[in-house]
């Protein structure tokens, strides 16, 4: 067992960096970029944890992981124990360990953050989950008494999976409906292999299946059966179908052949594995010069995917400045290392095409920043007579998503707001119809995996409470 080290020594140590594939190499492959901690690195990093009595890091974790406790077990080299500690509250540790913006959550609250060297909680979580997977260590299947109550969950993304796992652990009979042929939602269609290997998603989904969750894929709720119909068959429902509809800029030329929504581009590459075409049958076409519009995480994923698929130049076009970029710092850093070119304060106003509909360029306008707007970010203002054309041959719109109406229009009494998102209580996920709960992006709009995990947890708790009171959707 590794030693506990003195507080003084702990404070002295620097955060252990995680090694990565070098940029020149990785921009030509789809393998994961960060390589993870070794056993020694994990222990060395874990030893830095001050084991605060009143651990603030936990308050920053929507998955409610007992962070000091699992880190203590890492120091003790009880990795199986650490894994089970995490699994108590987070059913997707290898996933959240990779894609959570820890710098804005747990690590932001770490006492050592003030010195600029918070404990690398995410990396440790990832290490523990990977270790368990590689060493065939599993969570315990609880022997909770069956409650004899049926809960239907719509959507198998992070919110749905989390809610399913929590409820199954409590003895509920859970059925998970997925519209696509694979489970995972945005984890499989949205996030690229180089950030989140699909074998890892599959593994954690399999672990959840072992809890006894019934899975129905290829099932479009709203098309086969309405939410109203399912409400007659289940005691409670959780709607977590994500905000799957792509947004476009509504500028001229946006329907030319080589203009993709990020959803289409990433779904082709990630879910359908178009990067392995023609071994996989789904094609994807990438130009020599790709422009991705937007600067969120999805934009970074798109621009980096375009590069890996053969684009010689991959641009990010963003109407605000570097300071307002919504993507994680780490993602921007990775993108820049790989040679993604950032065009800030640039607004596309027209996509240019030839007579066959192929993209040949994009007309843009220079912007300057004005006063902060409703979002608190500086409002971009067009500079007059600053139009210019960039030579590109493909465009990826990564400016966000909106609500897909198929599910909502089949759910009587479940109110949506003016953007089509379900109105739900942020503490419980309760919608305007008793017994129906909602969470994840279909409530929040485009948010993060971890906020969806958090919503799944809250809804599971609220559903348990609702059903424990003897209530049910079924008459």
């Amino acid at each position: 067992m590794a030693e506990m080290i003195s507080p003084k020594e702990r404070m002295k140590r620097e955060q252990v960096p995680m090694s990565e594939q070098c940029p020149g190499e990785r921009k030509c492959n789809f393998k994961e970029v960060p390589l993870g901690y070794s056993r020694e690195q994990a222990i060395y990093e874990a030893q830095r944890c001050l084991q605060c009595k009143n651990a603030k890091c936990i308050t920053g974790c929507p998955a409610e992981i007992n962070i000091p406790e699992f880190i203590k077990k890492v120091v003790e080299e009880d990795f199986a124990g650490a894994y089970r500690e995490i699994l108590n509250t987070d059913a997707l540790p290898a996933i959240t360990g990779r894609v959570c913006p820890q710098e804005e959550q747990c690590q932001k609250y770490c006492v050592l953050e003030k010195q600029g060297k918070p404990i690398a909680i995410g990396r440790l979580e990832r290490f523990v989950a990977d270790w368990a997977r590689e060493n065939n260590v599993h969570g315990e299947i609880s022997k909770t008494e069956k409650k004899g109550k049926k809960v239907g969950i719509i959507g198998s993304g992070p919110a749905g999976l989390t809610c399913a796992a929590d409820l199954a652990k409590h003895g509920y009979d859970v059925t998970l409906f997925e519209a696509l042929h694979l489970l995972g939602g945005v984890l499989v269609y949205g996030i690229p292999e180089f950030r989140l290997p699909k074998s890892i998603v599959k593994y954690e989904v399999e672990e959840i299946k072992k809890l006894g969750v019934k899975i129905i894929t290829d099932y479009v709720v709203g098309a086969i059966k309405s939410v109203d119909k399912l409400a007659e068959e289940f005691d409670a429902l959780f709607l977590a179908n994500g905000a799957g509809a792509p947004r476009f800029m509504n500028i001229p030329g946006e329907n030319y052949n080589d203009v993709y929504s990020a959803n289409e581009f990433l779904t082709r590459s990630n879910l359908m594995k178009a990067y392995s075409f023609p071994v996989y049958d789904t094609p994807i076409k990438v130009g020599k010069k790709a422009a991705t519009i937007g600067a969120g995480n999805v934009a970074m994923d798109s621009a980096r995917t375009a590069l890996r698929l053969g684009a010689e130049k991959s641009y990010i076009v963003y109407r605000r400045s570097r300071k307002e970029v919504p993507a994680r710092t780490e993602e921007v850093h990775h993108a820049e290392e790989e040679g993604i070119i950032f065009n800030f304060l640039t607004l596309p106003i027209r996509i240019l095409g030839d007579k066959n509909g192929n993209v040949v360029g994009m007309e843009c306008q220079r912007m300057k920043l004005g006063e902060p707007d409703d979002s608190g970010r500086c409002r971009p203002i067009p500079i007059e007579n600053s139009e210019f054309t960039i030579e590109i041959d493909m465009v990826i719109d990564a400016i966000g998503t909106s609500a897909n109406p198929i599910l909502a229009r089949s759910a009587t009494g479940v109110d949506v707001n003016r953007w089509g998102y379900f109105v739900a209580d942020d503490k419980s996920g309760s919608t305007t119809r008793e017994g129906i709960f909602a969470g994840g992006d279909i409530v929040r709009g485009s948010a993060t995996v971890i906020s969806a995990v958090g919503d799944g947890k809250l809804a599971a708790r609220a559903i348990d409470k609702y059903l424990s009171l003897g209530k049910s959707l079924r008459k």
Partner: protein
Amino acid sequence: MYKITKKEQLNDVIYSMWIEAPEVASSVQPGQFIILMISEKGERIPLTVADFNRKKGLIRIVFQIVGKTSDELSKLKENDNLFSFIGPLGMATEIEKYGKVITVGGGTGIACIHPITRALKEAGNEVISIIGARNKNLIIMEEELKKASSQLIVTTDDGSYGRKGFVTQVLKELLEEDSEIKKVWTIGPPIMMKVTCDTTKPYHVDTIVSLNSIMVDGTGMCGSCRVTIGGETKFVCSDGPEFDGQLVDWEEFSNRLTRYKGLEENSWNEFKKVEHDCKCGRRTE
């Protein structure tokens, strides 16, 4: 898994299959489509439903060999399974009692127009169907269409069967001699649908087309199928597949259908080569 319970070759290039998909069959309506995948490595292809049997839980699909996936699909046998089969997708046809209506089908569009024709007749309409193809051999589902409609007119470009000429010529004659025609549905190759719309335009008869765009998920998630309708972008998968044909931007629609042409040809050629090399005795061309 979704079992192929019956397979038929309708002509050299068109096949019909009945697929076991009880959930889809229980809720499908005329005009809707499904998306299938042959295997885990397959692509997702949309096909408009040609027929359904709710009691037996079956969906009929009719497809023409146009590339690798349809070629591979045509080689599956009865009792083989499809990896994925989702639906019913898209909006159903607006079936009402209109009076006298015409349905026009060309190629595999004949199969797609079939359940719509039947439903229109069941709703009390007098339905004249016009189906056409290049020659006699390419005419499919004649018996089904005869049964589904009040009157069936068959055309072939070369005159080898039925009336010689295009479906649109017959359509024009009907519109010319009967001012009571309330609505026209047309499904077939884009050029046929466009010419049908051009034909009906001077007569101011509502003309509905069913578009067969390239799709991925088919549920409104990716926008691959987007098309301009009356100056507005719509998704074929979730807003359609049926639209007012007079409002469709046909040039854009046709361009977008060619997005993966080169890649698709390469993939099909590879597939044919492998087939040939393995000497399994199956058709290579």
